[in-house]
């Protein structure tokens, strides 16, 4: 859960510098995109390597999960069958080779390929992260603009206090409070799960189900099913979205204060541009670039937060599964899911950086 100071990210020189160096000081957007795309590979490589060697420090996944329950000879047999008795480097290169071919391993408890788990549960997590991002943007951007415009007046102080509060609340505690109030005391919203049992039975058995319940529900065209799915999404989306909303608010505020104080805004004001337009267009546009850059980091953070949110709400996505495998001590599964997430995060950051470059020409030169 990294809340790094948004201002610090914005002015952080290391990353763009590294890219600029790699970019060779020039070239157009195409070149930037290419260089940025190639940077995905070292990032994924480093993370996968790091996770691999970290996991091997404990010995091997089999000893770690069932070591105490097997006789030494049985254990040896299992180790040999899985290839864990070979030198670590040999295993490492084999693992890398498998990843290149898209094989992230097979879980040791229920013998399922990791890629299958990602395909089955990835949709649910993507759905949750998408909702959360919507919540965060809908709350964070307008309130941040307002706070910047009414700087140091009471709404500003109030919004900033709320932003700090949402950050200080762990997602699982926020989720617990929301559940307590809206599900148990008021009885307005369902307590957990992605849909009622009956509805999820229907949705899981649709031919060609995407695993993204909202899309599946819309395809059934049944109003009750859509309503059920949406109602179940409210609390998890709020819980995870609030975590990020505060960060967007602070970021928008800090950048808007900068642009509101700039000379071209004064110039526009003196030309008689209306205040609302001044805030929305003149001051907000330039503040948008750092927001998009940080959104990449936020998506990574939301993926991390989804592990906790999904566990809190019994939302059967990747994070929920990861937690299940953690408690089953299935470390092959954990390693596989984490490695796969590394790929997703790297690709997301690539997309975000390209979008930022499209908007802001300064990034690519």
């Amino acid at each position, binding site marked *: 859960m990294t809340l790094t100071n948004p201002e*610090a990210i914005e002015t952080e020189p290391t990353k763009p510098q*590294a890219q600029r160096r790699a970019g060779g000081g020039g070239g157009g957007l195409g070149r930037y995109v290419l260089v940025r795309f190639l940077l995905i590979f070292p990032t994924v490589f*480093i993370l996968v390597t790091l996770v691999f060697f970290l996991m091997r420090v404990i010995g091997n996944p089999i000893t770690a999960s069932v070591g105490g329950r097997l006789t030494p000879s049985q254990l040896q047999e299992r180790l040999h069958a899985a290839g864990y008795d070979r030198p670590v480097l040999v295993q490492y290169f084999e693992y890398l080779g498998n990843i290149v071919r898209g094989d992230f391993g097979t879980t040791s408890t229920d013998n399922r390929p990791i890629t299958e788990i990602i395909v089955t549960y990835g949709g649910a997590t993507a759905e949750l992260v998408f909702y959360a991002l919507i919540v965060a943007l809908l709350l964070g951007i307008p309130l941040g603009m307002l706070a910047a415009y009414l700087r140091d007046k009471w709404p500003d102080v109030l919004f900033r206090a709320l932003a700090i509060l949402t950050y*200080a609340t762990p997602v*699982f505690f926020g989720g*617990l409070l929301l559940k307590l109030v809206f599900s148990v005391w008021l009885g307005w919203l369902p307590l957990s799960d992605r849909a009622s049992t009956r509805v999820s039975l229907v949705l899981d058995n649709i031919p060609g189900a995407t695993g993204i319940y909202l899309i599946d529900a819309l395809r059934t065209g049944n109003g009750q099913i859509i309503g059920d799915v949406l109602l179940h999404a409210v609390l998890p989306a709020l819980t995870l979205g609030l975590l990020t909303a505060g960060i967007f608010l602070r970021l928008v505020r800090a950048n808007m204060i900068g642009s509101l104080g700039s000379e071209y805004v004064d110039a526009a004001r003196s030309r008689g541009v209306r205040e609302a337009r001044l805030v929305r267009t003149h001051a907000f546009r330039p503040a948008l670039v750092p927001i998009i850059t940080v959104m990449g980091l936020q998506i990574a953070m939301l993926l*991390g937060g989804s592990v906790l949110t999904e566990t809190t709400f019994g939302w059967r996505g990747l994070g929920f599964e990861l937690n299940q495998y*953690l408690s089953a001590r299935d470390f092959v599964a954990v390693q596989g899911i984490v490695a796969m997430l590394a790929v997703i995060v790297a690709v997301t950051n690539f997309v975000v950086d390209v979008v930022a470059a499209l908007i802001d020409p300064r990034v690519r030169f």
Partner: protein
Amino acid sequence: MADTSLVDRHEPLWKRLPVVVQLRKSTGWQRAMLITGVVICALYIVVAVAAPLIAPYGFGQLQGADGQSFPRTGAPSPEHIWGTTVGGFDVFSRVVYGARTAVLVVIVAVVVSIIIGVLLGMVSGYLGGWLDRILVVVADAIYAFPSLLLAIVVSIVVSGGNSSYSGGIIAAAISITVVYVPQYFRVVRAEAVRLRNEAFVESARVLGTNPWRIMTRHVLRNSTRSLPLILTLNASDAILTLAGLGFLGFGIGPTAGAEWGYDLSRALSDVASGVWWTGVFPGVAIVVLVLGVTFVGESLNDISDPRLRARRRIKDLGRRRAAAAASTEGAAA
């Protein structure tokens, strides 16, 4: 970035200490925020140190002195002011001992990550070369990755499943360290790169000073100014990461020590039956501590940033001038 102009070298030492400097420079609600933050942090440290004196029962205690077992999920009552859990633990006592765990983990984690991060950043930034490039790429990769996931992986490695108190503390602290080293690294490296070409460093090099001495005397001393800021921001992250790990079952077992995240994970199933006290109290304990640390960090940030600091004071000054002018006018009339 901290503003060096805040520090006057001729002031006595205590006036030059990080928080004291900002406190003296601050005004209005920024000062109020800083003071609130410092007070909250101090309170938690006191509770952590004096836990056995404050808590009526032990964190793993299941029965009173009379041999009577505590009630299970007992509502708050005079004997158990914050109620008891499903397992029959006293919630208040566990929250109090939880402060000890949190404070210990944060201190260990922050100290270790600062030492490693600053050292790596300084050497990497000053010496440059291939080592620098590799470290930057690695730090960037770690930085962009969900920190909780990394902490989980490290925690699996370090704890290997054991849940003793000191083992749990060290496991949690190391997991957090791995995540935050890159952040200190990035900041200090950026400063070291800047300082490498400064005239005073260059002249030291020309004089034939050995690189280690240049690094410790000239580079390090000048590259640590923004550390208190990152430190507070990371301390609050560390508390949340610790709670997250505990929530996922990588904390400290209930009989080995008290940990808020673990208690919250147990409390999750209580909510459905309307039992609120097992979750709300440890949760609020986390929120208030993180708030306290964040307040300190936020106000240090605002005070050290001239754009955010100066404004209120100038405005006050203007108002005072206006008031003075008005009063002299009044006197003249």
